[in-house]
């Protein structure tokens, strides 16, 4: 403890009082001032510090450690230096100012430190909370994992100690072990998924997604599940739904959870309905609702359905639900990740509706695409999509449109023919099963009209009508349900082909392939390369070349076999083939031509004739 006295109760005195009054290390013995009006005196009274007008009287106390002279008077200073007790410091005006400044700074620092400490304490509290949540989660996880493990362990032991049990019983127990193992792996997967999402460790590939199309695609697989349970599954996609930007797999996960729950909790003869529309409430975005006529959720349970492991059991359920109790928690995490909303409305015993909204822009005003196309000089390729099923049509149009093509639609054969003649599209995708005039008739009519015969036609069909289609002159074929990437690829191939004739060069001698390729490119042809027979055959199917230059002696499959195999496939059987080989014997030539090659050249020949022949074949 340091004892001090202050001489002078002006501004300096006031500052010293303020600084020292709450300092436990300092005791202010007294303050001296001759002017009773001085501002610091009021302060001194508040702090109960003795006041005097005779500063020398204060010096009678021998325990003084320091005297602060803030009078600025030399005379006072002189007297103090003479009369101060031993070991006592006299600090003048400047010195006092410095001390005040230093202490002020220290106080500020302390204050800052205290603030930091407070913040750290708050963070620590939050961490503790998170830690608690984690601990609870782990304890719940361990409980959930132990449950199936218990049955596995129990029945394994029973089987081991009762080897003479009858076959039926053994089978029953093994089935339980098997099912419970599956349940265990599902649990582990879901737990990993959830913790990855929560830790932000999942890589999201954000893409433009049409939720309407996505739901349509998913519905067919759920149709099976629904019909097994004799539940009616229906969907309605409203018009003008804007695209959302999201990770497709994550949306599939949410939809899968909601759809499988809905089907699971609905009784036979019940109904599950999916609706997709644009909404502005509670947030602007695409709203998906999945409603069922199932068991419903009690009011008190509604709050917890999105919590982890919160499976609600009900008297109405004969079996315990087989899920992991994490599906909705995962869905919640995913939707929240997109700043979307997910919620449920339910009436116990009557059914539930789960909603989620993924934020999006407002729907674009419908543009009369067809008119735009006609008026505008066409820059993008125009594709006519023909399908009597509106949703299938939408699906194709959407994906083609997203790829940058202009798209027009026709919903029956008459419309298809009329639109082809009016707009002369660059490509037509054609469903072959339509009411009235069928797709094959459309192919036949268009391919026999000089004005439209060169428009490539891609047959899109559920029936395997390849042969018939190719007979009428269709150029390619794709099966329903349509795989998006296959569609895009086939369309691109067909459009390329229309621009430039495409030649496949198949030879295991890389030098020859490159040399011929170079010359053909110079002549304005597109070339594709294959270095063995198998590759040649695969590329014929995927790239649909107009001509193939084929070597005979190649690894994996020789040239003869390639010709034989391609002639068996309807899509490749009309492709022209020129054999180019070092195998210069008459029998080889005869064999190749008899299998269907157009011509036969040996590599030592003058290649001039060879190129001339190519130009002739491709016209």
């Amino acid at each position, binding site marked *: 403890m340091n004892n001090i006295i202050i001489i002078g109760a002006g501004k300096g005195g006031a500052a010293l009082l303020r600084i020292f009054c709450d300092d436990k290390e300092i005791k202010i013995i007294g303050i001296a001032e001759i002017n009773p009006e001085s501002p610091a005196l009021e302060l001194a009274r508040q702090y109960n510090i003795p006041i005097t007008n005779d500063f020398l009287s204060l010096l009678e106390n021998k325990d003084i450690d320091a005297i602060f002279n803030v009078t600025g008077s030399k005379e006072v200073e002189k007297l103090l230096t003479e009369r101060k007790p031993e070991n006592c410091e006299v600090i003048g005006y400047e010195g006092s100012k410095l001390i005040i400044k230093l202490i002020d700074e220290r106080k500020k620092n302390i204050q800052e430190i205290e603030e930091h400490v407070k913040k750290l304490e708050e963070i620590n509290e939050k961490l503790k909370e998170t830690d608690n949540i984690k601990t609870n989660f782990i304890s719940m996880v361990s*409980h959930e994992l132990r*449950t199936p*493990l218990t*049955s596995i362990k129990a029945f394994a032991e029973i089987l081991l100690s009762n080897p003479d049990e009858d076959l039926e019983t053994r089978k029953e127990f093994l089935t339980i072990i098997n099912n419970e193992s599956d349940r265990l792996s599902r649990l582990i997967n879901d737990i990993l998924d959830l913790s990855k999402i929560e830790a932000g460790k999942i890589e999201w590939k954000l893409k433009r997604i049409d939720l309407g199309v996505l739901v349509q695609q998913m519905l067919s697989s759920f149709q099976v599940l629904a019909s097994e349970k004799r539940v009616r599954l229906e969907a309605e996609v409203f018009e003008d739904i804007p695209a959302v930007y999201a990770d497709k797999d994550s949306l599939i996960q949410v939809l899968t959870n909601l759809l499988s729950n809905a089907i699971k909790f609905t009784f036979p003869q019940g109904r599950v309905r999916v609706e997709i529309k644009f909404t502005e409430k509670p947030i602007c975005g695409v709203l998906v609702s999945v409603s069922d006529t199932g068991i419903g959720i009690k009011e008190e349970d509604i709050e917890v359905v999105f919590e982890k492991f919160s499976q609600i059991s009900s008297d109405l359920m004969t079996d315990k639900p087989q899920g992991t109790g994490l599906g909705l928690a995962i869905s919640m995490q995913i939707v929240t990740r997109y700043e979307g909303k997910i919620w449920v409305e339910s009436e116990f015993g009557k059914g539930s509706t789960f909603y989620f909204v993924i934020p999006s822009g407002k729907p674009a005003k419908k543009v009369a695409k067809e008119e735009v196309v006609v008026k505008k000089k066409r820059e993008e390729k125009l594709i006519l999509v023909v399908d009597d099923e509106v949703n299938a049509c939408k699906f194709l149009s959407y994906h083609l449109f997203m790829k940058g093509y202009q798209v027009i639609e026709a919903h029956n054969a008459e419309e298809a023919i009329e639109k082809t003649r009016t707009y002369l599209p660059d490509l037509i995708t054609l469903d072959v099963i339509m009411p009235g005039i069928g797709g094959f008739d459309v192919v036949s009519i268009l391919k026999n009209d000089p004005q439209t015969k060169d428009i490539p036609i891609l047959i899109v069909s559920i029936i395997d009508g390849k042969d018939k289609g190719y007979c009428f002159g269709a150029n390619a074929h794709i099966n329903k349900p349509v795989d998006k990437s296959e569609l895009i690829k086939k369309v691109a191939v067909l459009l390329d082909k229309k621009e430039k004739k495409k030649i496949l060069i198949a030879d295991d001698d890389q030098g020859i392939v490159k040399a011929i390729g170079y010359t053909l490119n110079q002549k304005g042809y597109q070339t594709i390369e294959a270095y063995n027979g198998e590759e040649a055959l695969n590329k014929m199917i995927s790239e649909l070349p107009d001509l193939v230059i084929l070597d005979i002696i190649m690894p994996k499959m020789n040239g003869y076999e390639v010709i034989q195999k391609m002639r068996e496939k309807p899509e490749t059987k009309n492709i022209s083939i020129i054999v180019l080989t070092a195998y210069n014997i008459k029998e080889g030539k005869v064999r190749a031509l008899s299998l269907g090659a157009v011509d036969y050249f040996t590599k030592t020949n003058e290649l001039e004739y060879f190129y001339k022949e190519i130009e002739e074949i491709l016209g």
Partner: protein
Amino acid sequence: MKKKKILVVDDEPYVVRSLIFVLKKEGYLTVSASNGEEALQKAMTEEPDLIFLDIMMPKINGYEVCKRLKEHEKTKGIYIIILTAKGQKEDKMKGVEVGVNEYITKPFSPSKVIQRMKEIFEDQGIC
């Protein structure tokens, strides 16, 4: 000697199935319940000698079932073995408070559980 009657309570049907199977093999009479409410009712009507009781069950949980049984004159003497996946110390303490006689953590070995049960009956016979 009169055959002992055992009540198995668990909302997991397979757990019930496995215990009932081994108990029957050993010649015990068995009763089962799949929730707390049913457990209380069967404990009253069936008067079992011992109860295997799960904790995490819908409606009335195992602790509550145990508490009510131990409070009731007719059922307070029934030996209660908790079978639970919650093996934490705090959970066991909670069990002690409501009068649980024994605690077995899942997953368990059915034969060991039966072994332990036999020992209990032997001890009771001596007393």
